[in-house]
């Protein structure tokens, strides 16, 4: 049964992203997620941005309802679920937009050496201040309002010696992640990449098959959400995904 928690703090991150803190700390590994039950609406997957926090971007009905919650509201949490990151050696983290959420606890626990944080514009950078203290932070904005003018891959190409990192943890839009995987693959180190994937999830526990990926049938909810680059390089990743009914659509 989901654990019912009460929202005790709501933090504005960007105009469309809020962080909710609840009255209960879960025992998580960075990169693990939960199924968040918004009563009367839906249950959707969210990474833990800390043991008692989720960081939500508004994209539709459930996320709209979540960022509209006020202190004292109750939601249900099933989790922690999935495998989480397994950082080793020198760690580079790369986040795009709200993809920073599951990477943040990795930085908080001191595992990240270098962090590349991307967003469309300066106002949409999430957790930048504390990441600055915790890591060697490099910023990229699409519009150039802060840091590198362009995508996180630009930072990668211009400022980073990829081979000097043992683990590269990534979360963000799938095309961004695909771009990074291509670079790792070109450098012959796809296996050093750890990508936190998104697929349509219903059960969250490896039963329903909604989040299964071609061609191996790996379930993002249970075998992932974090996969190494070599696990997904010859997969549907970067080309298509399935919607709630199981129909394929381009990513």
């Amino acid at each position: 049964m989901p654990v019912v928690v009460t929202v005790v703090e709501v933090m504005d991150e960007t105009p469309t992203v809020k962080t909710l803190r609840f009255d209960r700390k879960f025992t998580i590994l960075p990169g693990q997620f939960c199924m968040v039950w918004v009563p009367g609406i839906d249950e959707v997957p969210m990474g833990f941005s800390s043991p008692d926090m989720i960081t939500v971007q508004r994209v539709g009905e459930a996320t709209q309802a979540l960022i509209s919650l006020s202190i004292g509201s109750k939601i249900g949490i099933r989790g922690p679920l999935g495998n989480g990151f397994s950082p080793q050696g020198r760690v580079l983290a790369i986040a795009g937009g709200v993809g920073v959420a599951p990477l943040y606890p990795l930085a908080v626990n001191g595992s990240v050496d270098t962090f590349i944080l991307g967003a469309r514009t300066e106002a949409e950078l999430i957790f930048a201040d504390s990441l600055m203290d915790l890591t060697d932070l490099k910023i990229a904005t699409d519009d150039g309002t802060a840091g590198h003018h362009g995508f996180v891959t630009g930072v990668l190409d211009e400022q980073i010696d990829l081979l000097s990192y043992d683990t590269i943890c990534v979360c963000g839009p799938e095309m961004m992640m695909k771009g990074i995987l291509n670079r790792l693959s070109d450098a012959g180190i796809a296996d050093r990449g750890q990508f936190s994937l998104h697929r349509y999830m219903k059960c969250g526990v490896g039963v329903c098959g909604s989040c299964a990926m071609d061609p191996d049938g790996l379930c993002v909810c249970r075998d992932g959400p974090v996969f190494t680059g070599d696990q997904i390089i010859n997969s549907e990743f970067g080309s298509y995904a399935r919607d709630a009914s199981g129909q394929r659509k381009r990513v």
Partner: protein
Amino acid sequence: MITLQKELVHVGGVTLDNHLILAAGVLGTTGASLFRMLRQGAGGVVTKSIGPNPKEGHAGPCLVPLERGLLNAMGLPNPSKNFLQELEPLAGKPVVVSIFGGKPDEFRTVASWFEGVAAGYELNLSCPHAEGYGAAIGSDPAMVRACTEEVAAFGMPTWVKLTPNVTDIGTIGRAAEEGGATALVAINTVRAMRIAIDLRRPVLGNRFGGLSGAMIFPIALRCVYDLYEACSIPIIGCGGVSSAADVIEMMMAGASAVQIGSAVYDDSSVFGSIADVLYSTDGVSASGIVGCAHE
């Protein structure tokens, strides 16, 4: 414990690699996940139930793990005819396509898409939480017979999956048999629900759902036993099977093969785990024990 000979299994017209079949709706939405289960030791697989139109399913939560069981109300999400492309890599494999519909001709329509593609059909006349589908028609013997007839007319193996949520499952089993079913599958999930008391509301988006997993095993076993007495076509036992001993027990009740669904929750390679214990070179032939508890 008694063990079985590893042998090809012929049930209701379908040939399986062993007695262990993946149950409908569990890891059955994509061809790849079905293939994975075959690789891990399933002797055959049943797909997610496919209907006449694409469906997104119920709002979440749609599955809640309980102690020794799962409660779900997925709401039959499926890509409908588009599912055909999922089956391409599975040509020639023991893949049974599960079908649902609201009327006999909907069953026929869906079945027609998979003619020659599937190793057989399984009619879902038993899902307890989809208004107008599944158990809603599966508790009416005349409807069961009519839907079965439509699909059996294709001349392909036609399994009919039954709901335990009826006064007498034997009557329903006989209706399916009269309609031309080649095997019966028992059971689908048991009508159930839970309430999240801190939120004062049912935990499933659909409020009601179906119970599966170990906690329903004694209920499923009883249904198989009843059907074995009431009907004369083969029975495939389903519901809470999670060990080799459960497989043997289902067979003794009357099942010629078993389906396994929820047990993947505790062990994602459950097919291999069970097969390792179930089969041995000095095992007996399944035919020697099927239904032996009736003697």
